[in-house]
Each structure stands twice: as structure tokens, then as C-alpha cells.
């Protein structure tokens, strides 16, 4: 780890400085991205990577003018299937944090609009500047009757600009993400839907309550309470979750036991949502998790929730059965169902894509194939990245005439990829539970 960090320092200074600027606003980029990326940076044989890097800088600059949802899209695309060159991924994961803060007068105005009172009148104390930034809003700390509260306020005009931002991001996405037009359209609709949901704070409260309640039996998890009387379309008030972000927590050198406990809580949380609730907190971003006393995991921000349709669920998860890779018949059926292959494909294409997807699935399903899985195993992640790189540069994919994979997969892939990454960051070994029907 120490050695890797050193490697990172050898990135040209200006880039570090620029990156630091974003980090200083509180960005904690997923550790894997950074580590992996740093490693590649010093490898001189990877010219293409550094080219991507400078591209990403430029693109990032233009994208950062857009703010809000466009960045969110870029970020999301970058998470998807890790098909994207790493340089972009880094930029985009950081992008989330870079929106400029709302001025205090605007915060006051927003409060007056919804409650007819300023924040000072509603709470005992209220921080004048934001304590945290989120992609489409910012968080202030308040107290009321001795209770610490977190108040999230949305930037004005975000909801309104989602659709137009998406149009803006299109040309970038096409050029950058090695996606063809069909594939992009296929996803855009899904992305727009989620983004619009994310701007609806009332819906977010409703879902937060629903999911927190449904997950309340899982040990070592903690959810904040939400306060309707101080919430509206643009403002959410909830309990302040005291604790440390994963990165900070890891710096305190927690024991392997603690890491496993947090990792297990995280795994259980996702397991219950995906397999029992069939709707999932689809934003496993490090910023959305806080580690509290006694290694309890606090979960905030239910902005992005993906409801998993039943038939998609069946198909997708039957793929993680270990022995499935042998049963050709069943596999074909699922691949059709998940839109990985279709009748439009030539025989050659069918064979090729089936091969690739099989490889992908057996890799991504690997944690499910044993009782326990050690996510500290960097080799596993190397393999995933390596496959992602290979696919993103593959000619067959680029010239493919149709989108591959069901649109629902976008968020589920993102969720699992994010979850694996978090667990890797935690260096946790967890019991990878499976639903009964998959055993």
C-alpha cells in the first residue's frame, strides 16, 4: 500500500495539484480506482492510458461547466460494467463533489419558500456554510432541542435541467465511453428516470423510511430518522450520523474483526434489499456510508433506489449459480432474456458474445461461489479491470449494432461493482450469503 501511494506521487505535479483541488472539497475517491490507476500511470507501456488521462482532463473541464446531472450521468456511465478506461472513471467519480456551494442567502430563500421561515427560526443553531457537498445539493448541520440534525438542500434548477443536461452529455458519452448510439439511447432513458427520482426529495424520504424499516433487523446497521416537518421538495432534514467515512476510519487501523463486521453488515444490507425487498440503494458510493462507534455502519442518502423487476431478477441472479456455466440450454435462454444476445446477431456474434459474458459472469459471480469471500484479494479486482479494459477496446463490441444487456442491469451492475469496491477498500472477508433458491 505504502509503495503504491508513492507511485501515485510520481504523476506529473500539475495533475496532482488539480486532482487535489477536487479532493480538498471532501472527495474520497474509491481506493481501488486510485491505486489501480496510479499503478498504471507509472507503467510506461501504457501510452494509451495516459492519453485517456489527458483526454479525461479536458473532458472533465468541459463537463464541470455542466454540473449537476450531467456529471452524475458521466459518473454513472463510468461505473457501469467498468467498461470505461480508468482515467475517465477517476475524473468522474471525483466530479460528484465539485459543484460550488449554495450561498447562504439562497439557503435562506429556499427555507422561506417552503416553511415561511428562515433556518435560524426553525432550528436552535444552523451552520452558515455547508458541512458537506452532495452531487445535487449540500448538507448543513443544525441542532434542535439538543439533537444534532443534518439538513440537505438541493441546488435550484437541478430537477429542471436533468433532461437538457442529458442531451448535453450525449456527444461526450458517445465519443468517450466507446458506446455506440443504440447502446447509449438504451441507457439514457433509464438514467433519466433515476435522476429525476433523485431530485424528488419527498420520494427519497419515503423510500429511506421504507428501506430503513425493512432493514432494521440487520445487526450493526444504523439509519437516521427523517423529519417531515422540516422537509420539502428541496429540503431533507434527518438525524446527524456521527462517525467517520470509510477512508478516515481505515486510517485509525481498525482490527480485521472490525473490518469484517462492517463488511458483513454492508453485505447483509445489500443481500436483504436485492433478494427480499427487490429494491436497492443503488448508489454504493463511499460518501454514503459512515462508520460509527462499535463498528456500526450508518447509511445515508437513499436518493438513488432501483426497483428490480421480477423477471430480470430471476434471470440475472440465476447466472451466479456456479454450475450454470455448464448448462448450455439454460444459459442461452437467460442470455436472450437479459438481452445479451438477440435474433439479430449472426452465429459468429452469438458465439463471441456468449463467450465474453460467460467470462464476465463467472468473474463477477465469484464471491457467490463460496461460503466466504475475501474481498481484500486485489488479484480478483485486477482480473475484473483487465477484463473491462479488454472489452472496452474490443472491436466486436464497438461495431455491434445493438445494445447489450437489459437496461435494468445498468444499476444492478453498478450496485454490485460499487459494493465489491467498498468491500475491497475495507479489506473485509464476509460470509457471502445467497438466497435459498440459489443454493
Amino acid at each position: 500500500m505504502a509503495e503504491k501511494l508513492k507511485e501515485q506521487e510520481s504523476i506529473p505535479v500539475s495533475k496532482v495539484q488539480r486532482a487535489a483541488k477536487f479532493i480538498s472539497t471532501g472527495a474520497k475517491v474509491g481506493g481501488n480506482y486510485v491505486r489501480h490507476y496510479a499503478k498504471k500511470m507509472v507503467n510506461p507501456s501504457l501510452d494509451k492510458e495516459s492519453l485517456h488521462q489527458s483526454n479525461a482532463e479536458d473532458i472533465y473541464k468541459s463537463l464541470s461547466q455542466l454540473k449537476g446531472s450531467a456529471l452524475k450521468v458521466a459518473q454513472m456511465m463510468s461505473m457501469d460494467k467498468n467498461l470505461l478506461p480508468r482515467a475517465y472513471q477517476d475524473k468522474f467519480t471525483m466530479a460528484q463533489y465539485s459543484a460550488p456551494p449554495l450561498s447562504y442567502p439562497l439557503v435562506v430563500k429556499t427555507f422561506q419558500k417552503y416553511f415561511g421561515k428562515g433556518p435560524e427560526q426553525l432550528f436552535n443553531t444552523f451552520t452558515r456554510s455547508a458541512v458537506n457537498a452532495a452531487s445535487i445539493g449540500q448538507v448543513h448541520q443544525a441542532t434542535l432541542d439538543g439533537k444534532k440534525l443534518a439538513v440537505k438542500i438541493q441546488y435550484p434548477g437541478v430537477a429542471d435541467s436533468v433532461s437538457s443536461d442529458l442531451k448535453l452529455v450525449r456527444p461526450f458519452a458517445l465519443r468517450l465511453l466507446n458506446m455506440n448510439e443504440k447502446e447509449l439511447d438504451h441507457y439514457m432513458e433509464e438514467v433519466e428516470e433515476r435522476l429525476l427520482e433523485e431530485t424528488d426529495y419527498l420520494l427519497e424520504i419515503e423510500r429511506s423510511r421504507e428501506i430503513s424499516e425493512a432493514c432494521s433487523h440487520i445487526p450493526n446497521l444504523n439509519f437516521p430518522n427523517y423529519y417531515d416537518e422540516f422537509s420539502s421538495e428541496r429540503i431533507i432534514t434527518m438525524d446527524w450520523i456521527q462517525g467517520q467515512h470509510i477512508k478516515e476510519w481505515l486510517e485509525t487501523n481498525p482490527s480485521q474483526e472490525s473490518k469484517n463486521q462492517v463488511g458483513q453488515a454492508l453485505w447483509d444490507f445489500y443481500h436483504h434489499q436485492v433478494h427480499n425487498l427487490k429494491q436497492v440503494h443503488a448508489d454504493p458510493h463511499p460518501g454514503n456510508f459512515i462508520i460509527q462507534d462499535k463498528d456500526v455502519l450508518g447509511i445515508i442518502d437513499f436518493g438513488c433506489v432501483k426497483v428490480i423487476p421480477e423477471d430480470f431478477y430471476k434471470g440475472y441472479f440465476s447466472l451466479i449459480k456456479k454450475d450454470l456455466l455448464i448448462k448450455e440450454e439454460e444459459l442461452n435462454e437467460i442470455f436472450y432474456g437479459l438481452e445479451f444476445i438477440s435474433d439479430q446477431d449472426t452465429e459468429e456474434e452469438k458465439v463471441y458474445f456468449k463467450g465474453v459474458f460467460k467470462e464476465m459472469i463467472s468473474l463477477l459471480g465469484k464471491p457467490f461461489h463460496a461460503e466466504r469471500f475475501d474481498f481484500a484479494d486485489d488479484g480478483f479486482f485486477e482480473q475484473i479491470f483487465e477484463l473491462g479494459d479488454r472489452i472496452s477496446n474490443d472491436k466486436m463490441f464497438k461495431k455491434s449494432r445493438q445494445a447489450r444487456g437489459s437496461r435494468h442491469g445498468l444499476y444492478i451492475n453498478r450496485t454490485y461493482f460499487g459494493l465489491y469496491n467498498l468491500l475491497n477498500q475495507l479489506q473485509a472477508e464476509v460470509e457471502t450469503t445467497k438466497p435459498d433458491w440459489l443454493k
Partner: protein
Amino acid sequence: METTAKKKTSKKDYRKLILESYQQHVLEFGKEPASIFKFAKELKMTEGEFYTWFTSFDAIKSEIWVQLFDETVSQLEAQEVYKEYSAREKFLGFLFTWIEVLKNNRSYLLSLYSEKLKSLTSLPTELKEFRSKFKDYAGEIILEGKETQEIANRPILSDRYDEALWVQVLFVFNYWLKDQSPGFEKTDAAIEKSVNLAFDLMGKSALDSFLDFAKFLYQSK
């Protein structure tokens, strides 16, 4: 509604009556009355009487602008936090509140100004009074900003800052007239971004250091 005869209205009320009726007329007909004569007749007063209060429609419009401004300032000052604001925040607060006040009169303003005000250079005469009052107000903000070092004191240039803020007021007004986003959220964003830019420009920046350095090199030669 104002045309119903009012018994023994005091002086003050006449002024108010004329202002209200004028706004009412613009709202209903989408334009101002054809002449003072016709308007006075509507109000059941003679043209001669009318001139005691206002001498032209422009004077009426001017008064309405001033009233909007006064209301903005009084609303602002009623907020407790206002006193603690930095110069930048005060100006932001002013624009946010002003737009809120304007919102209640949007139809009136749209009928009169959606066609005009295309350019920021030619100023309708009825805005002059508002402008001078605003510049007094802006002057105070700027002075305060200079005291707290929030605004850099630059020769010649800094005397024109109040003018710059005025141009911004016009910009925001124009933007808001055309804004179609729900709750005029885009105007909020426009205010936020443009004020930040303005104050970043007025604040001490790399340019000042550069000029200072250039001056030093020149003088020490």
C-alpha cells in the same frame, strides 16, 4: 374596482389610487392607458386634478419601481441574519428578495417590459429614480466590502463598481422575464452564479498581484 367612487379620500390615498389603477389598467389591457385624459376620466377626476399627483405615465411607473425597491430593502432589513452578511451575501440577498417582490407583480412587468429592455444600454426613463436609489444602496455594500477587504480598491475602476452591480440588476431582471423554469429556479441559479462572478472579479485577484509586480519592475528599473 377603484372606479367606484370613494368618499372623501385623503391626499395620500389619491396617490395610491392612481398607482393601483394604473397597474390594474396595464394588467387588464396589456398596455398603458391611451392618454392621461382618458385615464383621469376612468378615475373620475379631471386631467388638471390628475397632474397634482403625477405629470406623466413615466412618473407613475417610476414610482412603482421605487416602491418595489423600498419594499425589497425593508423586507431584507427585517431578516435578522442580514446584518451579519458579508457584502457578497448582502447583494445576493438583495437580488433574491427583489425577485420575490417582483414575482407578485410579474404580469404587470411582463406586459410593460417583455418587448423592451432588449439592450442594457438604453435605459427607460422610468428606471432612473430606481437606479439612483439602488446605486446609493449598492454604494454602501461596496464601501463595506472595501472595508472588509472583500472588494479590492482599484484606481478609477472601483468607482464604477456600483454601475457594474446595476448592470447586473438589469441582467437578472431580463433573465427573470424570460425564465420559464418552475418556481423561477433558473433565475435563482443565474443570480447565484453571476453575483459570485462579479464579486470574484471585484475581489483581490491574480490580476492585482500581476499589476503590482509590473509596477514594481517598472519603477525599480
